[in-house]
Every structure is written in C-alpha cells, then in structure tokens.
C-alpha cells in the first residue's frame, strides 16, 4: 500500500466523526487530492524532497494514550507547572493537559467543540494559512483538523506561565505520521507565550505535518517558540501562521536542533497598521539532515515594523535552506522591514541555500535584506588558540557565540537554558 492509499484510508476512517468540521475537512481533502504532494519542481519545495518522507511504511492507527506519569520526564525543566497541551500522534489529548492559569484567562478545547461555540471566529480564521501555501501539504493537515485544539487567551489577560504544547509521536510500529492542528485566539490586550516541543517516543521514524494558526487582537503580545529537537529520525513539515488582526506585537523564535527533513513555514500576516513583528531562527544541522525555513512577512497596512534574523550552522553533509519573503502591499506605506540570514558551513560537504524575496508595491518604505554563507573566522580561531584554547573548544566557543544572538531572543529563562544545554552539548564544549 503506498502513502497516498494509507492517507486515503485514514481519512475515510476519521472524517465521519469530524462533526462541525466535516465540511471543512471535505473541502481540504478534495484540495489535497487535486494538488497532491509537492515535487522538487514546485518552486517552494525545490531543495526539499518532501515526497520521500511519505512512504508506504507510514503508520497512522491510534493506540491507547500513554500514562501521564510516563510523560513527565519529557516536560521542559522548570515548566512542569506551566499550562500544558498534549498531542499524541497528532491528536489533541485533553486528559494529559494542564491549566495553570485557572482563573478563566485561558480556554483550551477540542477544535470541534470550539467550532460550535466560537463559530464566527473559526469560520474567519481556520484555514487562513492555506492561501499562502498552495501545495497540498497544508490542505492535507486541514483534512484532519477535527483532531486539533483551540486556544483562547481572554481579553486583557496576561498569562502567568507559558502554554507548552507537547507533540508526542510513537514510532514503535513504523514511521509514525501525525498531523497536529492548532488554532489560537489571543484576544485584545492579552499577553501569552506559546512553546511547541516535539518528542519521539520510540526509536523509529516520525513524520509530523502540523499547522498552527494564531490571531492577535488589539495591543495583544504573543511570543511563540518552536523548539525542534526530536532526533534525526524525525521529519517535519509545519506551518506557523500568525495573523495580526489589529495593532499588536508578535515575536517568534524557531530552533531546529535536529531532524531528518524539516520544513518550517512561518507567516507573519500584518493586517493592521502600526504592528510589530520579530522572526528569529536557528538551525544547527549535522549528518545528512536538511532544514528548510520559509518565512513570509506580509505587510498590508501602513507603519508596520518587522525584524528577521535566521542563523544556520551546517556540519557533515547537511543542508540549510532559507527563503524569506517580504510583501509590502500598496497601502502599506512607511513599512520598515529588515531581514538577515547568516550561515556557517563547518562540514566539508555541507551546503546552504538562501534566498531573500522582496515584493514591494508601496513607494515609501524601508526594507533591507542580507545574507552570508561562510566558514568560521580564521583570525578569531587563531586568537583563541594562541591563548591556549584547543582548536575544538575554540570552534565551539565561536559557534556558540554565533548561536547566542538567537538564543537570547528566547524570553523564557527555562526554555532558553534548556535549548542552550542542547546546543552546548552538540558543540561538545569541554574544559
């Protein structure tokens, strides 16, 4: 049975239970069938052979949920008491979640239920990301949306702790295919941090195809961190779609510290005047892995500011891909948009592909972009070695310093030190 047949069977098994999301799923399944999986000739996928990740070894059947006690060891240190949303094999598992902000500031519910209760919001925003990704991958996730979650941070509320979304994938029986779906509603004046973390519960392979769509209201503040360190048996295609409905501040950090084939789309859709957004990313790759970050900053209205910095370190035969689109629509006068992508190649067969793509239709804007691909600075290396620091440690120090720019953007201390530990171990710094 090939991958498409597996998907088709899985789809027909679950869509009958999609309830209020049935029509949405049907529409997207039809769209997926029409578009199919993207091939290399698809401009947006030219470096990323995603079809290879979909194989006849894919497993989608659900199992009994793991015990909460067995998951504890995977929770982020220091954030055990934070708000927690758990997905198992791509399906939201309410039994394993936890609400720290239990004063009614935060609502977490199955997407299906919310589709009835918050029908207007859902109809306006669920699936909005698809218009940016006409490639089947996004539609495929949407065809399974009924397993998703809806998050609402209520008007004017500031959460006391981050919302950590754990994605557990059980790879014991084959290549575990998961499709988590999240829709978030950060209402006017609300402040929240959302952290996503991915864990492979087996020793086999996983493939996760995720879509998370987040909306911010007037003066809302949203921090979003995507922490990928699932191991080199795990492939990922994900879209994070952040939509500023009114003037707000959004800040995203994407860390890709391992993974076989990883594709992250990050869209900052700035639909209101005076918005501000920040996009930071770090990819630290080795062996034959590939990380492909596609970002979009879409400025529709005047006076918006965005700043973007992505950095990559490629070892072994790994490949880093960066594509940064900035759209400035004709009404988006006085836009300030900055973009930078910096790559260090340390593996003799590693590579980086970087492409800024600016499309500007307004005439009074400030936009800049820059990209570099290089190796470690020989003068800096010599300087450190001349002080008695071994070549390996000198390299580690310099690479760590390179990564710090992005790490420092993680505003939660626990997440930052967790990520820093992984990075330091990876760079094998020893004294």
């Amino acid at each position, binding site marked *: 049975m090939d991958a498409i047949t597996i998907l088709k069977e899985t789809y027909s098994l679950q869509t009958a239970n999609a309830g209020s999301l049935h029509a949405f799923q049907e529409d997207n399944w039809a769209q997926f069938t029409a578009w199919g999986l993207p091939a290399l000739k698809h401009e947006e996928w030219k470096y990323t052979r995603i079809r290879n990740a979909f194989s006849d070894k894919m497993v989608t059947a659900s199992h009994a949920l793991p015990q909460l006690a067995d998951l504890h060891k995977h929770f982020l240190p220091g954030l055990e008491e934070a708000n927690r949303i758990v997905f198992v094999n791509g399906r939201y598992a309410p039994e394993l979640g936890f609400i720290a902000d239990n004063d009614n500031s935060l609502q977490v519910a199955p997407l299906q239920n919310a589709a009835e209760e918050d029908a207007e919001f859902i109809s306006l925003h669920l699936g909005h990301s698809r218009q940016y990704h006409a490639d089947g991958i996004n539609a495929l996730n949407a065809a399974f949306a009924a397993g998703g979650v809806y998050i609402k941070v209520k008007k004017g509320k500031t959460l006391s702790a981050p919302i950590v979304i754990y994605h557990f994938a059980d790879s014991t029986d084959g290549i575990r295919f998961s499709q988590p779906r999240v829709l978030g509603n950060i209402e006017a004046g609300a402040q929240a941090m959302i952290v996503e973390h991915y864990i492979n519960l087996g020793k086999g392979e996983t493939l996760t195809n995720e879509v998370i769509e987040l909306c911010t209201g007037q003066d809302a503040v949203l921090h979003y961190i995507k922490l990928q360190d699932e191991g080199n048996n795990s492939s990922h295609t994900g879209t994070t779609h952040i939509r500023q409905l009114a003037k707000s501040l959004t800040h995203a950090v994407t860390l890709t510290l391992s993974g076989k084939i990883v594709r992250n789309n990050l869209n900052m859709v700035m639909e209101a005047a005076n918005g501000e957004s920040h996009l930071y990313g770090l990819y630290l790759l080795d062996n034959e892995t590939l990380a492909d970050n596609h970002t979009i900053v879409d400025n529709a209205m005047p006076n918006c500011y965005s700043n973007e910095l992505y950095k990559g370190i490629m070892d072994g035969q790994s490949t880093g891909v960066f594509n940064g689109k900035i759209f400035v629509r004709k009404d988006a006068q006085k836009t300030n948009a900055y973009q930078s992508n910096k790559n260090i190649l340390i593996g003799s067969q590693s590579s980086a592909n970087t492409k800024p793509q600016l499309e500007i239709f307004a005439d009074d804007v400030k936009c800049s972009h820059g990209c570099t691909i290089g190796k470690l600075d020989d003068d800096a290396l010599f*300087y450190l*070695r*001349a*002080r008695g*620091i*071994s*070549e390996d440690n000198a390299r580690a120090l310099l690479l760590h310093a390179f990564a*710090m720019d992005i790490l420092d953007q993680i505003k939660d201390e626990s997440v930052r030190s967790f990520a820093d530990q992984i990075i330091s171990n990876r760079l094998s710094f020893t004294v």
Partner: protein
Amino acid sequence: MLKIENLQARIEEKAILKGINLDIKPGEVHAIMGPNGSGKSTLASVLAGREDYEITGGTVDFMGKDLLELSPEDRAKEGLFLAFQYPVEIPGVSTTNFIKTAVNEKRKYQGLEALDAAQFLKTMKEKMKLVQIDQSLLSRSLNEGFSGGEKKRNEIFQMAMLEPKLAILDETDSGLDIDALRIVANGVNQLRSADNAFLVVTHYQRLLDYIVPDFVHVLYNGRIVRSGTKELALELEEKGYDFIKAEVEKETV
C-alpha cells in the same frame, strides 16, 4: 629559554624571514626594531604558530621543546604568549568567560585543578589592577567596540592572567596615546621577573623609554642586521632607519 637558529619563512612565494638567529635567556628583555615590511610581525606570528606562513628552514627551541612542532594552543600552554598588534573582536564571547577557559585549559595541561569561581575572581581582581582595566569591560564581548587602548590593555591583562614564560609584544605601542602607553608599560614592568622573558617588537623607540630592554636587534629585509644594547635604539631614533639600510647595502655590495 628561546633559541632561534637560521629561521626562514615565507608567505605564498614571498620569502619574509631569511635566516633569523636569536637567543633569549630568562630574565631578559629583547627588543626587535625595524622599518615597515622588515619581517617583525611575521617573526612574532611565526613564533606564535600562525599557519599562514610556511617555515622553509631553521629551528626554534623553546625550553627544550621544538617550538615549530607544537600547535598554537600547545605553545601557549607551554608558556608562550603573543600580545597581538590587532586584537580580534569576537562578538558573543565574554572576555571573562574566554580568559577563564584559557586559564583552565592551561592548568589542565599542567596537571593542575581548574580554578573555582571564587579563586578565579580573586586572581582576576588582582590582575585587573595591573593594567587599570574595568570589570564592566571584561563582561562585554571580547574586544568588541573596545578602543585601541582598551584592546591593548586587555592583551596585557590576559598576559597577566596566563603568566607566560616568554611574552612577545607585537607593536603593543601602536595606536596608543602616551597615557595608555604608560599604563601598558607599567603592567609589563610589574610582570618582569628573573624567570620570564620578553620580546618587544616595535617600530618606534618611545616604548623602550618605558620598557627598558637588555638587548636591541634591528631587523631589516628578513635578517637581524645589528644587535646592541638600548643605546642602539636611541641611535636609530636619532638617525632613522635609512642609515641602517645604507650601511647594510654597502656591506652587501
């Protein structure tokens, strides 16, 4: 301590050092002077192990070891120190963190325990006084945005922390005003002892008013063409390098 015999080096196809001989004993301060392009900085770089240069002949013995066989880091751990003419700016690496790593790697090499945080801080405070360097400077990224004087003081501070046997000062006076020069020279003088030695590379005599050398050598066209005492430096200052050039050319004709 350091014995250089007939040292020759080139970069790409260009010969820069054409047979250097130099013998430095513990407790001595040697100055190397010479016009631009004579090979002064090359000599300093070659001794520290910079790989841009190819050694084409000669030997360098450093306290019984074949210096040219050692990696730059092992030379440092054996007690060689190069104060850079142009200290490198390294964003994201704090000076404190860097110097702590360097000190502890050296201690490990010597079979000593790593300094704990308290011991390290205590040593650091003592050495900071030597060059009047401020704590706030040391918590910043290494040399990033430092003024010329701050960079050079940081070099001498690092030297004080690492306690080398042989310190090579590569044009440490360049880019310094007279006050900074005094502070730097004062730091060096306080570190002088019967056990260590200094090789001071400079273009101008003025540094040698503050760091008084036992021997002065003039490097010209890849060779040491004159050696003498500190009076030689004064003579150079008075007559300029042209008189040396003229004499050397007369001799070779």
